[in-house]
């Protein structure tokens, strides 16, 4: 029987952790005051995993682009039919999502939490693929890919990643392409499932209105009853991505009202430990907040010059073996905005990060951290991310409190460098005036 231990946290929220049969980590966040419960089962496997594991951690056989996402779709069908209908019959809504480094399956329900939890566990660990069902899904996913093809935010983003990276699979579109998904077969799906969906590579989180002991016991019984081979947590092999960017600029015409810009910076500082990872992540986020939040003088200047508007945004993403900052905007003059941004970055690097600005950004971060506890969904998402990154929830505030302006200044100089940058632009079609 799984033993549950309390997870300490500064907010004082009830959080319990245990390890279920076959090595599946379980987090429980009972919230008796809530009406619904939210369950999420996630694997540390996503679009980055473009190769099957090989012996000794060497890169193995390449699989078609988009297969992690395809697998996510296909798990919703098993021998008894459509799994989402089973959730509906239990009063739950369900969904799933594939990201770079993880794939997650979740349900939300106001009733029958235990039956829904059992359904979640059983369907994710019980794959069933046929040639016919794979062919049918190709038609559906083709429509999904076409929908993304029309989304300017998505297109400008992946055009930028293709510029920043030569080989790294982060440059691959998460859903793949209409061509690559046609190469997906039931056999390949089975091999990916066996390799990446082992409980030891996964985490289960349940938050909301339920009985913690009963749910833990049910998850324990359900997993114990399933036949699952020996497996372990998956570590991605090194890619050998060169430090340079693949190209400095990509530009194309698109059905947009105004030019869309994404300016990206490829991160060369790859973390050596989980805490190192967290430091890199938080330092960069706070730095971007200091430089570009609406309270910054830089933001004000660009806004008043008419170069940016509310669509302006700066964010950082990364995993163990890559990281990038993206500054996105809708602007009439992308090249002028890029030039102004580089002037601004040089200026900020010369002057250093003001202490008062840093304190504001950190306080904002602390406020956002508290706010994440408002919903079972957002807390579950944070727990899954922390689990895969091997850090504790409270490390987020702990590390944020350790950082100084000197850390941010160093990061600015080391990361936001022109030679590590690339630009992606979508321009309205020449005939758009006819609209």
């Amino acid at each position: 029987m799984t033993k549950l231990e309390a997870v300490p946290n500064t907010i004082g929220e009830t959080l319990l952790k245990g390890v279920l049969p076959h090595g599946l980590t379980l987090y429980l966040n009972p919230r008796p005051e809530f009406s619904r419960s939210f369950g999420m089962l996630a694997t540390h496997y996503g679009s980055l995993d473009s190769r099957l594991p090989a012996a000794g951690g060497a890169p193995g056989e390449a699989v078609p682009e988009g297969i992690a996402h395809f697998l996510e779709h296909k798990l919703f069908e098993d021998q008894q039919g459509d799994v989402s209908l089973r959730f509906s019959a239990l009063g739950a809504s369900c969904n799933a999502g594939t990201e770079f480094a993880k794939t997650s399956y979740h349900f939300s329900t106001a009733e029958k939490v235990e039956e829904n939890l059992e359904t979640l566990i059983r369907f994710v660990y019980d794959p069933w693929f046929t040639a016919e069902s794979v062919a049918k899904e190709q038609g559906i996913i083709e429509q999904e890919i076409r929908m993304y093809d029309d989304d300017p935010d998505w297109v400008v983003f992946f055009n930028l990643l293709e510029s920043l990276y030569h080989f790294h699979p982060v440059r691959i579109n998460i859903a793949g392409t209409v061509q690559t998904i046609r190469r997906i077969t039931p056999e390949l799906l089975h091999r990916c499932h066996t390799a990446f969906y082992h409980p030891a590579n996964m985490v289960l989180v349940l938050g909301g209105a339920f009985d913690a002991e009963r749910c833990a016991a049910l998850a324990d019984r359900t997993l114990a009853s399933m036949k699952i081979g020996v497996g372990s947590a998956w570590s991605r092999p090194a890619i050998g991505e060169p430090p340079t960017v693949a190209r400095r600029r990509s530009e194309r015409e698109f059905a947009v009202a105004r030019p869309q810009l994404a300016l990206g910076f490829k991160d060369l500082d790859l973390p050596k430990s989980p805490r190192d990872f967290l430091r890199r992540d938080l330092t960069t986020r706070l730095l971007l907040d200091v430089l570009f939040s609406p309270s910054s003088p830089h933001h004000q200047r660009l806004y008043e010059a008419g170069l940016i508007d509310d669509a302006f945004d700066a964010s950082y993403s990364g995993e163990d073996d890559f990281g990038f900052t993206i500054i996105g905007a809708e602007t009439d003059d992308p090249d002028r905005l890029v030039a102004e941004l580089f002037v601004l970055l040089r200026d900020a690097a010369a002057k250093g990060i003001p202490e008062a600005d840093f304190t504001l950004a950190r306080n904002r971060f602390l406020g956002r951290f508290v706010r994440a506890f408002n919903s079972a969904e957002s807390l579950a998402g944070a727990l899954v991310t922390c689990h895969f990154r091997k850090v504790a929830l409270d490390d987020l505030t702990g590390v944020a409190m350790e950082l100084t302006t000197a850390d941010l200044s160093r990061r600015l100089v080391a990361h936001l460098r022109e030679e590590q940058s690339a630009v992606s632009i979508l321009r309205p079609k020449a005939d758009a005036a006819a609209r």
Partner: protein
Amino acid sequence: MVDAAPGRAGDFLAARTRAGVDVFVLPTRKFKTKLVRLHWRTPSSRRNAARALVPNLMRRGTRRHPSMADVSRAFESLYGSSWSSSVYKHGQAQITSLRLETVEERFLPGKPAIFAPAVALMRELLFEPHLVRGAFPEDVFAQERLNHRREIEAQYNDKMTWAFQRLLDVTFGEEPYGLPVLGTVEQANALQGGDAIAAWTDLKERLPVRIFAVGDFALAEVEAIADEFFAPARPDADAAAAVRPPPAAGEPRLLIERDDVSQSKLITARLVDLSDLDEREFDALRVYAGVLGGGFHSRMFQSIREKHSLAYFASASLDRLRGVLFTSCGIDASDREKVGELTEKEIASLRDAPPRDDELEQTRRLMISGARGMFDSAGGMVETLEAGLSAGRVRTLDAICRSLAAVTAADITRVARRIGPVRTIYCLEGAARHAAADEPGGGEA
């Protein structure tokens, strides 16, 4: 069954101040934050653009915080208290909403005072914007007018939003329901400083206003805020409670607009007869739309996507304030007629025969779960009450759930007869990628 208990509106405590402001408070310690929302409503009109512009002008500065950066900094210094505005449509009404969310002080190091200063800032934004000789500064006004026009133009970037507004344009023309909530590019371009001042004055002094608060509050605390914000009496006519318009006249219309899109958007509108609707039918309409196209189990999803692989999404929704049933699908251009036929077939089938027990049961459960889920977020609680206020059916969550649970198959058939014939079929169409599908499973060229 309107919940008419004195001092209550559904699950909220309710009061009307001497000035005529409606205050709704849901005291709870369920969240780590306090939420306060101010809502003004007015019939949608050609003044939509001016009204939508006002919140963007307010944030550009106040007497004490003269720039946008100063205002942002003041909020950020309160541990990222967030202030935002939105303008959206509710039936025939345009709603302007100002929203303030602050973190509960007890969760922060040193328990700093946050809420009172954040409310004071909100008040400053609303009542003391930075003005020059009674007008928004010319450069600020010109820039926000330009940004507003660009925001309207940017709706083209999201092809579903764009297609939906085109459907409304075609179906409702000049009727308030069809007017773009942010106004049109032409209206934005024509705005003058005086229009903005007039729209701002309406917010301050004239339009009906509601204050919603969710968090660790007492009703009296929020009433005090209402009194402090809005002391002089406001005209008490609810301008937004307009008479329901007659059904838009005209023949059914098929409009295909070509664009460079990879996935075509096929959407339709049908008018729904809402006359003498009782409470049971009101909820049955919601369940009807759920059976037709509200989720994985629905008729449209199962038929168009799962059985025929003709779409990534296929759904239906029903506006119970104006009485319109919408369907929408993301398809390949070559499949337009086939998808249209499948949609029509499902609508006809719900008119001719009651839904199956299992689909009815699933839909009721999903709707109840969805309704309960709204109460797991402060914003959801406000939206539930506001939907009830707009429809004139304010109920507690439990009453809503009981009524949904009571909807029968016969009720669905009864309301299915209220759905009119298709009024508009709109398709934002790209190039066809494959030959028309006529076999289950779709066909590749």
